[in-house]
């Protein structure tokens, strides 16, 4: 290409670029003015984990099984738990996560046997210390007493029902034994009908 020709074609390409930029100036702005505009968080958004508050029970369902502690690659979860007077199974008494260590992989959520872990939607938290610990039980403290009361009531009721059932069974057994004893004295046809009813 000649010297002048290359100058001409060079200018042409530069002007094409300028033209595209010129067109875009009139376009819609795509910048999100972050601190002033709240970002729309997707449902799957990952931040710190939190304990689900189930509607039926009114609280979380952490049974301190330690599955999430075992699978966590960053070892950032601390759980303590034990038996509580009046209810069956274990219950977490301490659930802390050091968010400074968390790598947000979600393995704890996937491994939870009671599905009581989920992502929280915190995107603008900041700390000034190295330790960045979230106490996951804190939001549930207010409901804990209520939960335990209901749970105890339910379990007491269940126990009572069970006891009643057991008593009923024992009673039926006793009655059956009594009727069998009576039928031995009675005619053989009558004993046949009782065995049919039993089956």
């Amino acid at each position, binding site marked *: 290409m000649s010297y002048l020709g*290359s100058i001409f*074609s*060079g200018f042409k*390409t*530069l002007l*094409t*670029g300028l033209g*595209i*930029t010129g067109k*875009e100036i009139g376009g819609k702005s*795509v910048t999100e003015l972050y601190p002033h505009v709240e970002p729309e968080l*997707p*449902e*799957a*958004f*990952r931040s710190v984990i939190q304990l689900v508050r189930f509607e039926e029970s009114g609280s979380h369902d952490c049974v301190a099984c330690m*599955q999430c502690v075992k*699978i*966590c*690659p*960053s070892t950032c979860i601390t759980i303590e738990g034990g038996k509580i007077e009046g209810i069956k199974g274990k219950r977490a008494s301490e659930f802390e996560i050091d968010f400074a260590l968390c*790598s*947000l*992989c*979600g*393995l704890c959520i*996937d*491994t939870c046997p009671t599905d009581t872990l989920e*992502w929280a939607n915190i995107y603008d938290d900041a700390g000034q210390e190295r330790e960045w610990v979230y106490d996951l039980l804190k939001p549930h403290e207010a409901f804990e007493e209520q939960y335990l009361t209901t749970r105890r009531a339910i379990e007491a009721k269940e126990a009572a029902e069970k006891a009643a059932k057991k008593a009923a069974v024992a009673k039926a057994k006793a009655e059956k034994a009594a009727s069998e004893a009576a039928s031995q004295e009675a005619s053989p046809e009558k004993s046949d009908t009782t065995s049919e009813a039993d089956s």
Partner: protein
Amino acid sequence: MNPHPAPALERAHDDETYYLNMGPQHPSMHGVLRLLLRLRGELILECDPVIGYAHRAHEKMAENRSWIQFLPNTSRIDYLSGMIYNLGYCQAVEKMASIEVPVRAQAIRVIVSELNRIQSHLLWFGTFLLDIGGITPFLYCFDDREKILSILERVTGSRLTYSYGRFGGVSQDIDDVFIEQTRSFLTRMRKQAPMYHQLVHENVIFRKRCEGVGVISREVAHDYGITGPTLRAIGVDYDVRRAEPYSGYEQYDFEIPTRTGGDCLARFEVRIEEMEQSCRIIEQALDALPDGPVKPAKFIKKLKPPAGEFYFAVESARGHFGMHMVSDGGDVPSKIKLRTPSFSLLSSMSEVLEGTMVADTIAILGSVDVVLPEIDR
């Protein structure tokens, strides 16, 4: 005084030559890389890449945790194509432990991997041009890239370090909104492509900076084990997706773009065409998306692959990413050796940069697209 001088420093040098440290904190350096250059005027006589500034001991970490606990690490090896690395690791372990993957999960893996590849190439496109002096394209392509990140964030919950894969599938199913968003992105991407072409490819400054610059010969590529778009720009149509198909890549119809120049321009063109091919793959995968589960009914957390050695490779945005795994039959890996493409690319730089100008270093390094955390691991 540096207590550990690089080898080149110890060599005898005459009065005409001098040393220049490019990096580790250089504005146009990709991550924390230090290039030790021996110069005569503007001419590079020797180049010695010094790495290790972003070393995080991923391979050692793998030996101290169970197979599934290594999952979040894989996205962080190469943070720009974290999805491909993450799913690649899952597939390697699945093959090792013979875990069946549902067909829907396989298709989803292909879709998100290709989206990730486009995203990585878009970022490379922007930063490469930024390196050689064009600010405008960077702004446009980051707008496009943002669309992909939003799409992926919706299903994975994360923008870069996805941890989306699970042994035997993926952590979440995709929905109709995802499919619709992806389709509209593909339309947008195809509309943008001619604009990028006009804006960059025909630009006289860009061509002067790239044409015939940083030619990598076949011999160098062979010696250093260069793969990916850089190898395809030399004219070798090697692509793991075609050579050893995984995750159902054999079902999709796509081309492997090649060039013969081996220079910066050829690498540029190969990557631009690759984005279009990725679009094609995504389209086909979306059209033929099967129904069904995306992960096994029971979450696989404990895994004991049979004892032995195993190699598995995927095509990352930068080339052949291989994992050599050694299992002793326990639930902790004996060894996971990661073979990353950028390491080969950067190693070859000592040979490629010899005899070029300082200003071209930026263009060459930018065009081969190295990611430092992936080199240091």
